[in-house]
């Protein structure tokens, strides 16, 4: 599938990107086999505006076990992704390569209706999905002046039930692992070591569909997605703390509205604030964008 998220960002200290490819998440879990490229115009808060492209090259395989209760799928995945720009110095993002494996459990039992009944969702229970996996990750900026390797385990819990109560149950990503800096001019500049560090990363968000919350008419299609991400680095050389950040909380809220236009499937607006593990500056940003895809 080709899907391109076109974003225009208005930011106090962020960037303006006209082409993003699944940029928000750290692509946990399975990967979508194939090659995807999304051209981008990049204007960082420092440095010159440049052309670039988001890319994702992935190969995955999976084995499924389909049963009425607790169906599951085992996956392995190799993937390279990131943002490459004509001026590497202007690239605010990074390049990633990972190998991952895990298993996805469906926490449900499905009981279909009888064919003589009117169509109905049937019975059983449904508590969502649990994905447990591990990955080896290499991450670097485009000039490879900052890079690391990490080994981490991750757990994702998510769900999609339409009942009201489920709107308030968060979607969760928990990740914990070891990372080791393999190159860092920043750390070199303060004489910090590249000993192993640990990173704990937790993200929770909610998908609030106004239709499920009881709204009717066109507004029912509006979705609000508030989210919080918290990370903690431990084992960091104290000398590195002057140029890096060891913990932080990032909050965001996005409103998304689907359209029936041919080339624009949704529009969205997002507000976010707070640091990220790879973006130590505390920043606030507004993003307004459209989602286009085939």
């Amino acid at each position, binding site marked *: 599938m080709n899907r391109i998220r076109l974003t225009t960002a208005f930011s106090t200290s962020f960037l303006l990107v006209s082409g993003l490819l699944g940029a928000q998440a750290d692509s946990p879990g399975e990967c979508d086999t194939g090659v995807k490229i999304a051209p981008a115009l990049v204007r960082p808060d420092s440095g010159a505006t440049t052309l670039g492209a988001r890319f994702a090259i992935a190969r995955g395989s999976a084995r*499924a076990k*389909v049963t009425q209760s607790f169906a599951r799928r085992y996956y392995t995945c190799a993937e390279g992704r990131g943002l490459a720009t004509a001026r590497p110095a202007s690239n605010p993002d990074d390049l990633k390569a990972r190998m991952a494996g895990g298993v996805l459990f469906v926490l449900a039992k499905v009981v279909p209706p009888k*064919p003589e009944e009117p169509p109905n969702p049937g019975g059983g229970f449904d508590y969502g999905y649990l994905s447990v996996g591990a990955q080896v990750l290499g991450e670097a900026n485009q000039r490879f002046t900052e890079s690391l390797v990490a080994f981490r385990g991750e757990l994702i819990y998510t769900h999609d039930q339409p009942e009201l109560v489920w709107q308030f149950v968060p979607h969760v990503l928990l990740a914990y692992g070891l990372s080791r800096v393999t190159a860092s001019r920043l750390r070199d500049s303060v004489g910090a070591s590249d000993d192993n560090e640990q990173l704990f990363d937790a993200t929770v968000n909610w998908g609030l569909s106004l239709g499920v919350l009881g709204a009717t008419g066109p507004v029912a299609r509006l979705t609000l997605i508030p989210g919080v991400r918290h990370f903690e680095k431990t084992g960091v050389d104290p000398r590195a703390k002057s140029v890096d950040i060891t913990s932080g909380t990032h909050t965001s809220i996005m409103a998304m509205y689907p359209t029936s236009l041919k080339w624009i499937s949704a529009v969205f607006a997002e507000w976010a604030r707070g640091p990220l593990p790879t973006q130590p500056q505390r920043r606030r940003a507004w993003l307004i964008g459209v989602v286009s895809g085939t």
Partner: protein
Amino acid sequence: MLINAHAHVFNLQTVLSHQAVKIIGQRVRDRGLPEFVVEAVERLLDELVARPENLDENELLARFVVRIASTNSFKSFVAANLDALPVEIRLLGDGPKKLGTAALRNVLDKLSTALGTTAAGRSSVFDIYETLRIALEADIVTVADHLLGHMGPEDGLVALMMDITAEQEPKRDRANFRAQIRGTSDAAVQRPGRIFPFIAVNSKRADHFDLMRNALEKLGFVGVKLYPSLGYQVDTEPMKQVFDYCVQNDVPIVMHCTRGGFYASQQTQSFGDPAIWEPILKARPTLRICFAHCGGEEGLESAPGTVKPKTWTAEIVKLMELYPNACMDVAYHTGMMSGGVVETNYLATIQALATNPKYQNRILFGTDAWILRLTMADDSFWQYFVAKLPAPVFQQMAGEAPRRFLGLPMADGTGIRPNMQRFVDFIASHRDAVGAEPTPWLRAAAGGTFAVLPSIPGWNLKNHAHFYTYSYALRVMTPADTHLGFPKSADLPLRRLTYWIGGPGSLGFDTRCEGNALKLAAFCKAAGAVYEGEYDDDSAVEQFANVFENGDTTLAKLAATVDAVFRFASEDI
């Protein structure tokens, strides 16, 4: 009311088996196409035998071009004709490329031109693609609509089934054939009064008689289609039982009668010889039978107004002289369209037959669509005959002659034959939910009122793949969308379902897509469905996950994918 007395509305999915692919490949080869096209068609269809898929136009186009480009014979062709070929085709010879639809169509156009196969009666690569495009529609009603689209609102067609029985693949064969019967019967209900189904009888199928009787008595079929060159003889006891039934129940037969078309082997090509019918008709002189294709158009082209002696055509004319219910049709006669003396002779002979009081109203107009598309479009065939024949002659061939053959009532409502009365009763038994306004003749014959529930091709609660897909979707549908109900949910894009929240890149999105793929597969299996072809848990979940990841996909398209991957108990009749 005009009637195309020889048409096909089955889709290829309902005949596909490895044996059918070989027979179809031979047909393409006989159309004069180079080996790489034959190979591409066979590979593409073989893949669909193994893993049925619902391909849209773009996917089919891309796959067809890629299959052509990846054959060794195409690479050899490019290497041998490097200087003469357009650059697009030379580049294609380097290996399959990812191209857009417009570019792919351009490549096919250029390839058709380069191969120089535009003469009348021959097929181009583009013709093959267009044929596949129609034939691989997801459901039979859509194929029928394709043919009805250029006809008048009251015009109809005879829908001849095809039974390329695959004895080595009994499970698939049984499911396919039943799907074809069910789909053809449903098409008659969806387009009431415009589609006249003929059940295919193939005596290689052990229960052919029971299937025929069930279709004629309970499923709205009005006649029987025979295709002996697919590998069975007609002068056998089992077939004589069929003919006796047809006489007793006033059922017409359409009999494939040309050496061309589909055939199992060189030997079986002659199984359609009309001479074989002399003793059969002698014992059953009232049998209504149409010898399709007139035995081959060459019998009409040798002299103006005269049938060529010692041809199958001459043999049919002899039978028509002896038996008042024997007819012939002009389906797939395209060779004369190149003009010249052949055309002059053909048109003069057809007119002579049609206006001869002995044969009047027994020369039927038929096109052989969609199979005709191997050579030309259906409406072009119609236009040719409308333009070349005097209006009264064409009116007789497409109006009165098929009316009589089929047993339709006359304008005053009288004269309806028993087979057509059963058809009327069958449609009337579905009067609470027909797919379109019944034609005036049917409304008059059936009486009462009909409730029209505008049908959406590929979206029908009677199809269990659709029933269970919709039922599953209700598990992840917002309350606002559940109020749409089944009919309006066909076009509901998957991004409106609750698993989509946040879309690609959002936390857990991939997990929800994969999870829904697993749950949908489990839902169908729990409903008793089994995998089609070589599908298994892995490939089925992969297929569904790909669909769930595309928010533009509609619920109807998801249902078509479920239908391709799973076979439900309801597919047995």
